[in-house]
């Protein structure tokens, strides 16, 4: 028939001891299943965390004055945003951009005073870059014609004891050193779920901010969103080229989300590495667990191998035959594990995993509602690939022992 006898033999040898082979296959499948699910789970949550942070906070890329990120000095500005805007129009993959200005100031209602980060935003463009509009829980979002209105974080509103329609006073320092003061009316209250933000940020219209803080035409941040994470670096390169040519500003920099939130990327790296450690240990335990199957399958056939060598099978060929057997076992296990793993993950990819017990905790990191694992080529392939490599190494050990078999001795084995 079409199938060579080598393969037929290997396949049938695998099933000589069905129970033992099945247990081994289940062990391998179990490991693959766990890995596919867990990796999809991890990658899914990373993606959610990154997207949330990007969509609420920083965008994918920002253009700022040099050192602004660290110093947050009101005088470190992007002086001519309009010029930059013209260059942004032509960049592929750029999905949206907006301007922001920030200052730390005192905010008081009649009864309370708190320090707050005041953000000046362009309501229309901001909506294309961040999710702020959808996070409004009371009142309404800023409209393009608004001037003296403000959106306030929920915890901040609570602490200040104010609600929609109330007035608050803002007191701070302008760009030129003058006193910046104004009265604003609360138009909307938002809730991001991240206590830091809800407790100490508010948003006012950009033109109002510019007047109050004597900004002129300048802003502090040009915030940009890219259509997918994979394009961030190429857009960054283009932007870097653009700002190099603008002689108006002394020194601007382009920062990507990893530089804007170094903690996030490292936090993800840490999580990934610790996950990998656990996974490797799991695979190692499985490898030793099934090593005995490979060992037994070889040592209980020593006599048979003697006969094979007597009729002319070289040690090399024998090793190959045995390795193919182990490979069949492993591949069946991996295949089964991947299939079941993908099915299970898919189910949760649609339904999500309810972690209501820890929901307050996870919203701080930007994970809201349910957790959704996400299948990807990497999450499906990398775990089983590692299993394949390590189990193949385990299978290699007994196979190597066959190399030194002497036919006569082998056949004398009882």
């Amino acid at each position, binding site marked *: 028939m079409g199938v060579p006898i080598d393969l037929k*033999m290997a396949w049938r040898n695998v099933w000589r001891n069905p129970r033992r082979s099945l247990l081994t296959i289940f062990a391998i499948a179990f490991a693959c299943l766990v890995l596919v699910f867990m990796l999809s789970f991890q990658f899914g949550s990373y993606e959610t965390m990154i997207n949330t942070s990007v969509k609420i906070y920083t965008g994918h890329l920002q253009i700022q004055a040099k050192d602004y990120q660290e110093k947050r000095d009101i005088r470190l500005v992007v002086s001519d945003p309009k010029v930059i805007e013209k260059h942004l129009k032509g960049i592929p993959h750029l999905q949206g951009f907006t301007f922001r200005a920030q200052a730390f100031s005192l905010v008081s209602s009649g009864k309370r005073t708190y320090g707050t980060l005041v953000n000046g935003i362009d309501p229309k463009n901001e909506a294309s870059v961040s999710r702020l509009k959808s996070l409004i829980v009371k009142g309404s979002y800023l409209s393009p014609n608004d001037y003296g209105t403000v959106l306030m974080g929920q915890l901040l509103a609570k602490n200040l004891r104010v609600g929609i329609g109330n007035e608050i006073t803002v007191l701070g320092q302008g760009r030129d050193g003058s006193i910046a003061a104004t009265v604003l009316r609360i138009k909307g209250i938002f809730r991001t779920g991240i206590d830091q933000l809800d407790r100490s940020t508010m948003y006012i219209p950009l033109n109002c901010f510019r007047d109050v803080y004597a900004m002129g035409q300048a802003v502090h941040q040009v915030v940009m969103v890219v259509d997918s994470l994979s394009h961030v670096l190429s857009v960054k390169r283009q932007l870097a080229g653009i700002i190099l040519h603008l002689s108006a500003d002394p020194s601007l920099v382009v920062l990507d989300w990893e530089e804007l939130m170094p903690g996030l990327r490292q936090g993800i790296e840490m999580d990934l590495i610790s996950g990998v450690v656990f996974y490797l240990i799991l695979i190692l335990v499985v490898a030793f667990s099934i090593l005995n199957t490979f060992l037994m399958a070889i040592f209980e056939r020593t006599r048979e191998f003697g*006969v094979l060598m007597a009729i*002319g*099978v*070289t040690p090399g060929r024998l090793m190959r035959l045995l390795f193919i057997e182990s490979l069949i076992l492993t591949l069946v296990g991996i295949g089964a594990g991947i299939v079941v793993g993908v099915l299970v993950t898919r189910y949760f990819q649609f339904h999500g995993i309810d972690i209501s017990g820890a929901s307050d905790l996870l919203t701080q990191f930007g994970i809201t509602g349910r957790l959704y694992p996400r299948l990807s080529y990497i999450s499906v392939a990398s775990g089983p690939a590692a299993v394949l490599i390590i189990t193949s190494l385990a299978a290699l050990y007994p196979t190597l022992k066959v190399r030194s078999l002497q036919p*006569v001795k082998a056949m004398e084995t009882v």
Partner: protein
Amino acid sequence: MLRSGKVKIVECIEVTKTYDQGNLQVKALENVTLSIGKGEFAALAGPSGSGKTTLLNMMGGLDRPDSGQILVEGQECTTMSQSELARLRLNKIGFVFQSYNLIPVLTAAENVEFVMLLQGVPASERRQRAKKILDEVGLEGLYDRRPAQLSGGQQQRVAVARAIVANPAIVLADEPTANLDSKTAKGLLEIMLKMNREKQVTFVFSTHDEMVMGYARRLIHIRDGKVYNDVVQG
């Protein structure tokens, strides 16, 4: 002793082999010299422990002597590497053992085909030759049976078929009938004799059974590792 005019298939010259058994040194073979010619049907006869199996293993390149030479079709075996010996066994020598000859997971035909596969014979030709040889040893229709589904005698016949199908220079059989009842044993020996006559296949088998010795045309008596008698009989 040598039949004049016959081509030497296997030649043993001053072959000696010693084994360690605990603290003792046992001389399995001591300066054994003999030749097997083409077409012979010879038996190595002797009690257990006489060294007949050891001698058989030597002749088939399964074991190396401590001193002396072994020539198979003129080629010096004692200095060959493992792979070269394997190739020798594949192409020149057929083996039949007392038991556990066959690969349990392959059918009778596949067991016979296996050797041809190793030799690189194309698939269609393999199948044909396997069936043909199985017919010749009296196993028509049993091609697709696994060893577990065959009787002891039938299994030994498949072993003989496999040994012959590759056209070896010599077939070495180590007590091939030891596990068979006398009727089946006779049947097997008849087949071997038939193959020897019709195809000129050289046979050397070891035995301690008088009945089996009766079938041999040349009887080589071995005791305590030495050949003490070498006769040609009818």
